[in-house]
């Protein structure tokens, strides 16, 4: 509109400062990942590697079972996302469409579950899973991730359901479609993008999760990527910086890609859930 030139200059300066603040740690991670040991040991570190190398990546794979860890992460996150969304979608539908006591209870539980310190949940879960012999197993972790993903999955999905006008379903009913038919041929197609976005979000949160995985998975061949990454940091906090950076960078790539795709839908879904509850 009518913003003055000095004000504009101020805005751009501020924006630039934000950009630097957001970007510099990530750029440093990249820079470190591609530096040969000689440059990492230098007393005057530089931004651009003089002699970029992929050796850190190879060494990272040699030192820790990264491939196995990535596979474990992928399995756990995929299973958790699919199961969580499959069981959350019908419930979200009921919660969004009806003002029953159940719907209120579920909404209350979603809010409360956000306030939870997970120690209080993980100790009993640990004991239960131990009795079921599901400690140190990816299926055990999936169980925990499903329940952990349910609150926000319900929240997002209920928001998407509310965005589908009930008139559509009623129209289908008037046209003689049965309830199930209405759900399958009218509601489900309209919900599909929201369901996919929710599943991807559940996938990323599980892919990134650390606490439950740290507690439940004991042996390196069962552990997920975030837990294995911490093994690069030695007991005394001394780390082999290059491989550490390389592995950390690789672990982020899938999340970054998926997140870039769904970012808009997530915020949309969460906010419709939040505003209309």
């Amino acid at each position, binding site marked *: 509109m009518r913003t003055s030139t000095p004000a504009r200059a101020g805005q751009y300066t501020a924006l630039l400062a934000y950009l630097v603040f957001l970007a510099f740690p990530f750029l440093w991670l990249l820079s470190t990942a591609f530096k040969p040991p000689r440059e990492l040991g230098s007393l005057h570190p530089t*931004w651009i590697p003089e002699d970029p190398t992929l050796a850190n990546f190879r060494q990272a794979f040699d030192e820790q079972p990264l491939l196995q860890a990535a596979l474990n992460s992928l399995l756990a996150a995929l299973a958790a996302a699919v199961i969580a969304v499959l069981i959350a979608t019908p419930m979200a539908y009921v919660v969004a469409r009806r003002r029953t006591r159940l719907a209120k209870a579920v909404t209350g539980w979603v809010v409360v579950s956000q306030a939870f310190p997970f120690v209080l949940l993980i100790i009993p879960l640990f004991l239960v899973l131990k009795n079921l012999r599901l400690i140190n197993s990816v299926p055990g972790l999936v169980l925990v991730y499903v329940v952990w993903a349910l609150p926000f999955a319900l929240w997002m999905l209920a928001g998407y359901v509310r965005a589908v006008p009930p008139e559509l379903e009623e129209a289908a009913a008037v046209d003689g479609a049965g309830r199930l038919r209405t759900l399958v041929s009218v509601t489900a197609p309209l919900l599909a993008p929201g369901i996919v976005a929710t599943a991807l979000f559940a996938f990323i949160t599980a892919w990134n999760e650390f606490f439950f995985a740290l507690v439940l998975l004991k042996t390196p061949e069962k552990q997920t990527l975030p837990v294995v990454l911490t093994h690069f940091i030695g007991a005394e906090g001394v780390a082999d910086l290059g491989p550490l950076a390389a592995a950390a960078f690789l672990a982020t790539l899938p999340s970054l890609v998926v997140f870039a795709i769904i970012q808009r839908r997530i915020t949309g879904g969460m906010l419709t859930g939040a505003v209309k509850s």
Partner: protein
Amino acid sequence: MTTATEASPPSPPSPPRRRAGRGTGGRRPRQAADHGAWFLVLPALIPILVLSVGPLLYGILLAFTDAQSGRTAPTQWIGALNFRDLLHDTLFWESFRIGLVWAVGVTVPQFLLALGLALLLNQDLRLRWLARALAIIPWAMPEVVVGIMWRLVYNPDAGILNETLRDIGLGGGRDWLSGLATALPAVILVGVWAGMPQTTVALLAGLQNTPRELHEAAAVDGAGPWRRFRTVTWPALKPIALAITALNLIWNFNSFALVYVLTSGGPGGRTRLPMLFAYEEAFRYGQFGYAAAMGCVMVAVISIALAVFLAGRLKGGDDA
């Protein structure tokens, strides 16, 4: 209504539909549907009850026992003994205090920075897309990676922070994460960085819900930027701002992974958040009962804080 006709292609749109949609809400063919509702709810309800509500109650019970890992003697009911011990556990209360400092120390600057960025991104600026793209990075990164990345930044010898400080003449390097005085501020900075995008996006969405005409009307009336912010922007933003701040405080108070990777609670417990303390108690020393009691205290405090906050918010809502 155009979307309505597009979405149900098999039958052509006809006027009766619209009437059916509006007026006859009570007449829907849903007598039997209430059984259907249970059928739809059960697949999620059972895991919630079995794996969330159940363990929760079990966890509260455990707080009143002497449960330990790897012990052969049976677990005994010991009443409130854990809580009495906890009351005198100065280390726990110290971690509680650190948790509060951390939660407020992260949430407040993060909110202010995010508000600034959201306001900027709501303007017609050229590098907006870049800021949005970059804001994804901290959000999408695993917390463990964020921790690792900042360890690289803070590294006393090979890190960029000390090198930059040397370059601009601010003296020699420091080991930020292991200095008694610097460790907590150093991890707080990482917390601010890591959570800023979410807060920014939430606030930005709030800003975009504010009607533009209001701004223009205020501008025509001669209101300056600050006045426009106070009278138009802030009132519209307030509900989202309060909600996100409450959530951030709680999430931060309960956080674990970031600080676990950065300092493991060190040096000398200076960054030992309550969750780290409870984790060590439970899974390093095997004191399940005692750690569960800590969890109970944390829940109680959070619940009270949340109740007070919500009460205040409702009151504020009446005024508005």
